[in-house]
């Protein structure tokens, strides 16, 4: 049952991801991404990680997705115009390299799994338990937690700074950049 569920969900996730890439309408892309996020959340659940499941749904499928859709609609950029692709020859090369990357990554994880079982760290014991995870975040991983706070502060400042400038000077034509 679990295996069946896994394959179905994984297939949905893959389809969502590929469809998002090839879709020509930005809103469609976003919706396919949502599909992918949802499937991923189910995969987390299959891995018995309820906490990640919730986070995935609320943060990614919820907050971030809504933001994406807002931006797309505000810009009115649902449709992508076709611009001549000057470096079209790179496309097959890119696909080839992507497949290669996938192969290397798969080989690494398959071979790694074939060896002795992974030792597993402190998370293995109670993986996915929100309470345990929270406790770890405030004890052992206190420092990364704090640093993340600073990073977020910086990001917020950055958004404000760049946005403010754009507003101030938007009317004036920028000087020729070259």
């Amino acid at each position, binding site marked *: 049952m679990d295996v069946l569920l896994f394959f179905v969900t994984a297939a949905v996730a893959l389809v969502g991801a590929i469809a998002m890439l090839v879709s020509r309408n930005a809103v469609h*892309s976003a919706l396919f991404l949502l599909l992918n996020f949802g499937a991923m959340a189910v995969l987390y659940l299959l891995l018995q990680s309820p906490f990640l499941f919730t986070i995935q749904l609320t943060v990614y499928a919820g907050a971030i997705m809504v933001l994406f859709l807002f931006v797309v609609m505000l810009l009115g950029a649902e449709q*992508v*115009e076709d*611009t001549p692709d000057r*470096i079209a020859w790179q496309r097959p090369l*890119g696909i080839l390299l992507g497949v290669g990357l996938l192969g*290397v990554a798969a080989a690494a994880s398959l*071979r790694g799994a074939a060896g002795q079982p992974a030792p597993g760290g402190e998370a293995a014991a109670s993986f996915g338990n929100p309470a345990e995870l929270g406790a770890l975040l405030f004890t052992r991983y206190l420092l990364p937690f704090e640093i993340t706070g600073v990073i977020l502060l910086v990001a917020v400042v950055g958004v404000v700074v760049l946005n403010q400038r754009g507003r101030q000077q938007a009317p004036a034509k920028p000087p020729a950049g070259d």
Partner: protein
Amino acid sequence: MAYLNWLIWLIPLLPLLGFLLNVFVVRRERPAGLLASGMVLGAFVVAVVAVIGLAGLPAESRRIMSTGWQWISTGAFQVPFGIMLDPLTAVMVLLVTGVGALIHIYSIGYMHGDPRVVRYFAYLNLFITMMLFLVMGNNLLILFLGWEGVGLCSFLLIGYWFERRSAAEAAVKAFVVNRIGDAAFILAMLAIFASFGTLNFYDVEIGGVIQPGFLERIPEILGRTVGPSWQPIAVATGISFLLLIGATGKSAQFPLFVWLPDAMAGPTPVSALIHAATMVTAGVYMMARTESLFQESLATQSWVLWIGALTALIAGTAAVAQWDIKRVLAYSTVSQLGFMVAACGMGAYVAAIFHLLTHGLFKALLFLGSGSVIHGTHDTQDMRRMGGLRTAMPTTFWTYLVGAAALAGIVPLAGFWSKDEILAHALSHGNWPQLIILFLTSLLTAFYMGRQVALVFYGEQRDHSYHAHESGRVMTVPLLILAVGAALGGLMNLPFSIPGGHWLSDWLNPVLHEEPGEFNLALALLATAGAVGMGYLGWWVYTRNAARVKVGGKDPAYRYTGDIWDGMEEAWYLDAAYNRFVVAPFRALGGFLARVFDPQGIDGLVMGIGRFFTWVGGGVRGLQSGYVRTYALVFTVGVLLVLGFVLIFTR
């Protein structure tokens, strides 16, 4: 003689002071020239005092080491910022400051009225400083400091008249070719440090601790029994071969001599100072200094010998076929440097230094003389446009004649004695092939000097578009002084067992362990007869056929030699070969790299912006626009390579 410890610092620091003042303070021509000349003259006086002090010491303790401060000090790696004065350095310092001072004074007249003359004197002072560090450094790193410094000054001075395209190109060429030698030099330093653990030439005592010198550790290192038996020889060969490459760059030896003839685009006093008397001899000096290292490797020694002999011959033939008065001298310089290098290869280091000193005197004289000719004929350098100048420029003519005779090796001028010592050495050591090559070259030398004198000073003036005049006193007095030096320089090392004979050999004996060369009367007679004969022949051919030398025309000898003459004129097409096989492929590679890896650098930016606008308008798909994708592609290739490597080597 404690005063020598600080006195010798004045020798390089006085010109340095002149340089700094000329860069930052002095703005007018006259004070700049006087200051620069005064500083070098001061350095010469100090050097004389210091050498007299040095001579007062017993022979075995004639080595003054003076450490300014500990330059590098990290664990085993100790390098002092120190200079020294020993017999070898002493003669070099006297040559550099003495000839240097004369050329500075000469420059006051020669460069008069040039708009950037303050800069000229600043560069010249910096050059003297660096050259002094080169010959005075008590370790390889200081030597290298000077080595790079003189290269830089040479570069700046070759390109001094940068409005002339040829000057700027010649400067770059000199620099690039020299870099090859410099890279080899750095590698040699790394190898010396790795093998000997020090870069000092000799033991230095600093703060009661003796820092070893590699030249004195050679027997001890090479005598060790660790490792395979061929290892010491391999080490010595590797290091000395790298040093040899360094020397071929700086001393313009085959196959790196191509920069020196072009370097004549610089002002003539510069050619005299840097490209004849001092800088180009740095390679010879360096080989003499590290003589004991070269002696350990027979392989390198034979390379040195062959490179020197071949360079002498190739450049000698090229000098015969030149029309530019300075290019004749330039090829002649390369040829004479070949003599010195060949002497080093034979182990005749005293002979090499002897020839270096006499050559410094008479070649400086010849260059300054040619400068006087160029000055007096209003920037004429083509000998086809000269002729008959001996009446208009008597002082220049007579001094030039002395220099030419000295170079040709006419008894009893300086060049005869030094060249003969090298030939005698080749004879007594049985280096027959090289002896023959060098002998032929000395015949060629006499011939092209006879040709030059005839073309410039004899016959009728072939081009009347200028009015030739003698140069002023400030230029002719240095010529006279140098002429005296070129005439009497041979007295330094007369090959006879009379009082004062072998003076240079004895003086250098503590540094260069070499028995004085044997005087061979037959060889000397043969060489003299050959020199006189060929010199006269050259003179005779070109005075007799003076009427057939036309402005822009071919040489009278061209009729008989044809293609060979063309080959000689182009120095056997070495330059063309470099352009074809090195420069062109390198350009192509650079262009290829630029196209593949840096499309933005050429025309990409505009396109990038165009794509960017479509992104702003078009929204989300911008991430696929333009070059980011290319970058990510290359990135992915890198990822695949790195991870692929890891996976291949794991199970």
